[in-house]
């Protein structure tokens, strides 16, 4: 109980993060991230 009380804000943010992950996955963002990450990002390496 003491752990929960002392870490309310941090735990709430982590919970919100989990909700956001699910929401983002539902909106197809995993695919967007994957597509960007498996192709050489010309901007990132200074060529784009």
């Amino acid at each position, binding site marked *: 109980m003491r752990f929960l009380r002392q*870490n309310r804000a941090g735990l709430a943010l*982590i919970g919100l993060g989990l909700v*956001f*992950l*699910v929401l983002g996955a539902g909106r197809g*963002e*995993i695919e967007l991230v994957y597509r*960007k990450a498996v192709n050489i*990002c010309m901007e990132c390496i200074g060529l784009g």
Partner: protein
Amino acid sequence: MGKKKINHLRTAVQLCTAALTNGYAAGFIQGKIYKGPTKQVCVPGLNCYSCPGALGACPIGSFQAVVTSRDRSFSFYVVGFLLIFGGLLGRFVCGWLCPFGLVQDLVHKIPFPKKWKKLPGDKYLRWLKYLILVGFVILLPLTVLDVVGQGQPWFCKYICPSGTLFGGLPLVSANPALQSALSWLFAWKVGLLVFLLLLSVVVYRPFCRYLCPLGAVYGLFNPVALYRYSIDPAKCTGCTACQKACPLDIPVHKTPNSPECIRCGRCKAACPHGAICTGAAPKKPE
């Protein structure tokens, strides 16, 4: 744990994390990048996904990739990762898990006649990272669009030295097709990288302190993250040994959860009274 021991432990963790998140060795030899399913997942640190060895995705690059796509203006997925990493660890990520932080730490070990605790104007310069976060990571990618309505990853393109070091240099040196595409932009990014590395010899972690938007995000989590610091008022005498030991010159006895603190742990090792507590459930109130 003594100062030397904590430094060695931290370097070991940094090296292991860098090797773990950049473990695709074939990429460095072939001048190609990894295309497996782990690339869907964001890593905690500033780790360019165009590094030939990268097994995961950089959160700052991924955020820009989503918001510059045509029908998105926010990334729940990437912000979700940031909330989880930040809520758990805060800027512990910067101190222990970021590969570009490791590089700056190693470069800072190079001897120099007079090391500086901070740059002149440090108080103002540290706000730059928030400007870069708002401007180069969020607003410019969202608002400056080309003829087909597509934005650009401004931070990755014009600033990120991690992308140049871990992505640009290894790929360009191993891939002749990319060498023919070099332009002023590459020269600018290499120049910025060299400048920051030279500055790292004199000042501890200049990129993290003044420019890194990921550090700006995680810093906001420091006061509430599960891993945080607290001061035992019954033990603290205000001797400032913590501030003297801190490479970022933070008065830890006054602000144990400063957004600048990267949780290197040197203050805790240096405190002669054991007044600095760390962890999720501090015994004494802050």
